[in-house]
């Protein structure tokens, strides 16, 4: 009962935050609501006993990426953009297409609902999460992990080059 309660609380925070993120006129407001969404997702991760990911979500997303966003919003003059139209000319087509994709996905879920019963699902506690994730990353997924680190390096260099005053 408590599980469901938390789930719905978090789900409503997430969806409301997401909705407000894509509809707000001011980019700062959008960012604030995105933070709310991300925090909601972090809560959902805790709810799913993925403590490590929840921590990463808060520290990296909320503390890192969103601060980056806010900096950029400050660097880029958005006053003028805020006074203009917020949606482009194809917004109704976009809405229709997104709704159609959503509908198809839901239909697919509905049609395949029988496949989602997990007979071997283990109730109860998971093993200590951080340790398990660490083991998985450094043992099973060593190579992708290193590739990801190279990707981050490349992205960093790219970002620096992009933002330089004179190329």
């Amino acid at each position, binding site marked *: 009962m408590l*599980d469901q309660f938390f789930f719905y609380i978090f789900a409503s925070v997430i969806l409301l935050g997401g909705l407000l*993120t*894509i509809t707000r006129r001011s980019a700062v407001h959008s960012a604030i609501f*995105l933070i709310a969404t991300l925090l909601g*997702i972090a809560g959902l991760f805790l709810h799913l006993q993925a403590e490590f990911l929840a921590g990463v*979500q808060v520290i990296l997303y909320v503390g890192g990426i969103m601060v980056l966003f806010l900096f950029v919003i400050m660097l880029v003059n958005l006053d003028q953009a805020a006074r203009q139209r917020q949606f482009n000319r194809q917004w109704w087509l976009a809405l229709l297409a997104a709704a159609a994709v959503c509908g198809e996905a839901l239909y697919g879920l509905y049609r395949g609902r029988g496949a989602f019963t997990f007979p071997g*699902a283990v109730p109860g506690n998971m093993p200590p*999460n951080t340790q398990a994730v660490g083991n998985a990353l450094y043992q099973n997924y060593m190579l992708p992990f290193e590739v990801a680190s190279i990707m981050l390096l490349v992205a*960093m260099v790219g970002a620096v080059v992009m933002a330089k005053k004179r190329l």
Partner: protein
Amino acid sequence: MPGNVPITHYLFLSTALFTLGVIGVLARRNIVIILMSIELILNAVNINLVAFSRHLASVSGQAFAVFIIADAAAEAAVGLGIIIAMFRNRGTIQADELDLLKW
């Protein structure tokens, strides 16, 4: 725990968040918000991954979620760099005013 909240709920939530993200990407004019919408889409995927990880009692999903977060960070860094360069050169960050691809 999984028994209390069926996995389909998570999937519905994820789908809804994904749809919001897609709408944001397709319909907003402000590139910063388009970037945020992409974060929404990525997080929708993360929700899926973690939910399945929980229900299958396998930690691999969480490992992939870590990768996706790293990916999101990289994407945000490069994307925001592009936005700054674009603003400096064109004086605007409205997506439909950047139509040089036509020529």
